[in-house]
């Protein structure tokens, strides 16, 4: 077979000449160890290749051959609970084969070739099938029914369909197409840089509930929506992403650890098999897929990792699931792009990032959405995408943050000022926003009630008022405020400390259902209403603020789920205490 040869090696970039049939984005094998790379630029006879592995020792003259296919992932049963590197190599198998350090040149299939899955057909001989049609199912985990679909671009009549135990490479279905007979297996492949097709995109209308109060109540994200979490180091991006990985009510969650810490992946690997999904009671690992390309793993594979993740996520969306893709951190992906671009000696744009940074970011988030999937039975899937951003020095004017804000609809702004005060999640309530609030209103009205919207609005209003009052306090001291302003300040503080602050590490506090969020907020806002009435009746503000119910409000976050009678009781106690207060006034 004819081969090309290496002309130049510079870090993760190799330039090769004379590679037969070189096409953009095709995967090539480089050197005697057959390292995996991808063609990212073609110029005349020269192909620039980014290598997904350590390149030490590669020499000019070493062989390069093209596989003729673009970088693709394997999609089929076995994805759930797996942990892969940036180009979908299974890290568990790599450990078994090579021990605790990652050697290069590893070539292992992403999906287990030996394991057999029970396949139940959903079509029969003679049925007409087209792309996206579900031909059968595999119960992959107690939480995930893996729906086997006709791959995009293939249509015809079912000649044969089997039921039984199969590996991912054995044919389960025979389809007569215009080009002849085609075998379908439980597995398909898809190039990662190309969005998977769907029938139609729809506007998001349902919230992705996350169990995180500041998010669900103030800055919700929709199923099929996009959000970003920018913040300086240590402000809590990873903790938020891990909270979503654990508690978001998506049916499938794909987590991409992109250029971040190894220990953070270990943390997830230890916790997920233990934690239970609050909705199904099953272990959370049974719905998760993990991609880990940590900061010390090859930089080109880091660049690919977000695409690997989102393609797997789209595949589950196509089955009709609500999927969440979490990328921590997209800045590391952008930096990988910058590094490769620098080696290609491309014209640098802002801060050395390539000029196409903005369009790559936009294309990535555009893969989110609520869609009508291809194929029958007709179904709806949703892919929500949430990316962390790590701005240098916490400065949000930098290119990655700016280009991300241009395309995402939710902005959770993390601040180190809040983190330093140990106000977690350190999401700034004044600068963050969600552009879904309006689109989600009908859902809340129907499912939760108007009360929720009113409480939310009032909470936001009080937080605004607080910011204004604080200015005054800074100048003249708190004593100068009117009693009702002082009450507003105290209520706002209660909203912050008793509602927005949420510990990710407390068993009860870590997750709060929408119902409990409503009850909690109601307590706080009701206190404010009653307090205002009491002030109007002449009660001294000090006495209002000393009511024992305030301590109970502060502890409300630790009331376990499903105890609404406890909240009702607290509401009654509160009314009672205020009544006492006015009685005392009358008596005194």
């Amino acid at each position, binding site marked *: 077979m004819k081969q090309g040869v290496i002309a130049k090696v510079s*870090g993760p970039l190799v330039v090769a000449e004379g590679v037969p049939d070189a096409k953009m984005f095709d995967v090539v094998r480089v050197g005697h160890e057959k390292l995996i790379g991808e063609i990212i630029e073609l110029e005349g006879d020269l192909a620039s290749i980014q290598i997904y592995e350590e390149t030490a020792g590669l020499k000019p003259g070493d062989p390069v051959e093209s596989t003729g296919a673009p970088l693709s992932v394997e999609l089929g049963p076995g994805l759930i609970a797996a942990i892969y590197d940036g180009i979908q190599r299974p890290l568990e198998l790599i450990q078994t084969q090579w021990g605790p350090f990652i050697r290069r040149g590893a070539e292992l299939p992403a999906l287990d070739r030996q394991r057999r899955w029970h396949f139940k057909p959903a079509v029969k001989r003679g049925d007409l099938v087209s792309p996206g049609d579900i031909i059968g199912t595999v119960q992959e985990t107690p939480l995930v029914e893996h729906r086997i679909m006709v791959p995009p671009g293939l249509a015809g009549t079912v000649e044969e369909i089997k039921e039984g135990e199969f590996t991912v490479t054995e044919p389960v279905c025979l389809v007569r197409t215009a080009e002849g007979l085609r075998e379908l297996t439980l597995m398909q492949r898809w190039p990662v840089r190309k969005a998977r097709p769907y029938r139609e995109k729809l506007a998001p209308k349902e919230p992705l509930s996350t169990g995180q109060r500041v998010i669900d109540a103030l800055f919700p994200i929709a199923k099929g929506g996009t959000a970003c979490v920018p913040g300086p180091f240590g402000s809590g991006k990873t903790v938020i992403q891990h909270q979503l990985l654990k508690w978001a009510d998506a049916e499938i969650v794909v987590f991409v650890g992109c250029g971040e810490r190894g220990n953070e992946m270990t943390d997830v690997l230890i916790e997920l098999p233990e934690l239970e999904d609050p909705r199904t009671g099953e272990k959370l690992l049974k719905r998760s897929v993990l991609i880990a390309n940590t900061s010390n793993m090859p930089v080109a594979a880091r660049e690919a990792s977000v695409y690997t993740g989102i393609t797997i996520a789209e595949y589950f969306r196509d089955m009709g699931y609500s999927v969440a893709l979490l990328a921590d951190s997209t800045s590391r992906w952008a930096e990988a792009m910058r590094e490769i671009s*620098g080696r290609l000696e491309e014209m640098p744009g802002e801060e050395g990032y390539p000029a196409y940074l903005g369009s790559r970011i936009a294309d990535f988030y555009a893969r989110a959405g609520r869609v009508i999937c291809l194929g029958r039975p007709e179904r709806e899937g949703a892919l929500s995408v949430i990316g962390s951003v790590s701005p240098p*020095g916490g400065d949000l004017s930098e290119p990655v943050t700016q280009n991300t804000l241009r395309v995402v609809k939710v902005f959770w702004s993390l601040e180190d000022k809040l983190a*330093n005060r140990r106000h977690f999640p350190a999401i700034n309530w004044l600068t963050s926003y969600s552009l879904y609030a309006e689109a989600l209103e009908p859902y809340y009205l129907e499912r939760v009630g108007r009360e929720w919207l009113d409480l939310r609005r009032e909470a936001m209003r009080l937080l605004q008022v607080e910011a204004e009052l604080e200015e005054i306090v800074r100048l003249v001291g708190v004593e100068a405020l009117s009693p009702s302003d002082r009450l507003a300040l105290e209520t706002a503080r209660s909203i912050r400390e008793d509602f927005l602050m949420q510990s990710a590490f407390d068993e009860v506090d870590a997750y709060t259902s929408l119902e409990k969020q409503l009850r909690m907020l109601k307590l706080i806002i009701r206190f404010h209403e009653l307090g205002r009435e009491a002030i109007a009746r002449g009660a001294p503000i000090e006495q209002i603020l000393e009511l024992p119910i305030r301590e109970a409000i502060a502890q409300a976050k630790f009331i376990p789920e499903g105890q609404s009678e406890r909240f009702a009781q607290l509401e009654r106690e509160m009314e009672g205490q205020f009544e006492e207060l006015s009685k005392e006034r009358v008596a005194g």
Partner: protein
Amino acid sequence: MQKEYLTIAEVAGPIMVVEAVRDVGYAELVEIELPNGEIRRGQVLEVDRDKAVVQLFEGASGLNLYKSRVRFLGRVMELGVSSDMLGRVFSGAGRPRDGGPEIIPEKRVSVLGEPINPYSRDYPSEFIQTGISVIDGLNTLVRGQKLPIFSGAGLPHHRIAAQIARQAKVLGKEEQFAIVFGAMGITFEEADFFVTDLRNTGALERAVLFINLADEPVVERILTPRVVLTTAEFLAFEKDMHVLVILIDMTNYAEALREVSAARKEVPGRRGYPGYLYTDLASIYERAGRIKGKKGSITQFPILTMPQDDKTHPIPDLTGYITEGQLFLSRELHRKGIYPPFDVLPCLSRLKDKGIGEGKTREDHAGVLNQLYSAYARGLDVREMAEILGEAALSKLDRIYLEFAEEFEQRFIQQGEYEDRPIEQTLDIGWELLALLPRSELKRVKEEHIEKYLPKKEAPAPPRWARLAR
């Protein structure tokens, strides 16, 4: 037989271009023999057909374009490692500098290292007692963590590092441990301080030191953390030792990287540092940790001086993005004469929660930690307010907090350089300080712990703050 080349085409700063080469691999180790017989070393940064770009570790001075011989060694930079390295002092590139014999290696390993498979890591959770209250009490360190000190020029970070090296231990365990120390571009006095301190305390026998001084080749510093960690990995993962790695000063390391990058005319990133600084630093810091099924561990204490005390400078910034927390030093406390001058509020050990509590430190630890932290934060707020509005404008409670902040700095933060406080003592001091506050303020500690640990107030002579409170 290696080929020798006499074809150096260009030397610019730490970069050399050799032409008409054959069979040269990327990242390969290079030897350059000067006309006087001196041997220098370098590494291939780029190879383009028959042209190799080489980074010179020991600088270019004395290098003659036409008479220097270049040999490509066909392997990457390796370090011969052995248990005999304990007790020895080496150059920043791994050559003996203590007059002792060459090491007879048990094996030779690439200094570049290989990434630890995230699947193979074990989560750090074992409490390391450093005997320093701010660390043990508020920012607890665990085995396998990487926790940097962000310092500034003239602050006593080296004394703190030496104190940690002297005192660090895991409670109730007799295990083999070692210190691997990497100095990059520090002064002779600073380096000598460490060596002497380790020798005086007898710790030198279980230490390996790699030292590159300020007046020694800059580019050699690029190697230093790598030889340090290669040694540490050998001791930890093949000799079952718990290794504490101290790297000082990472700022000098990053400067060296910048110098090479500039010489290569790469597109600079922020403030002239190369765009790959994050990835490069990660390739050092991520070599800390624990591995499933291995006894040993690597705990890293990188130290860096923040240029102009600016924490948004790329070196501290990118370090913070990689490490598992950070410890800041405060110039203000240093001026006040407080040692160790930790700037408590922005300090954080991200792994602390896994290392504290019953069975590890003490049941009340988490509560005490949170209460002390928030009380000190409030105290500092009050201090600031008092500066603007005057002390007269403070409420009674505010004054108590002001007093608390003062006492906290004097008694909790402040301690002797040779004072090794057990964790119980640190927590007890914490409770003594909490006793300054009204009981109703102690919302973050459990009732039962208050009963058990809060010192009972005695009748005689209420201190000033208590009179104010009434």
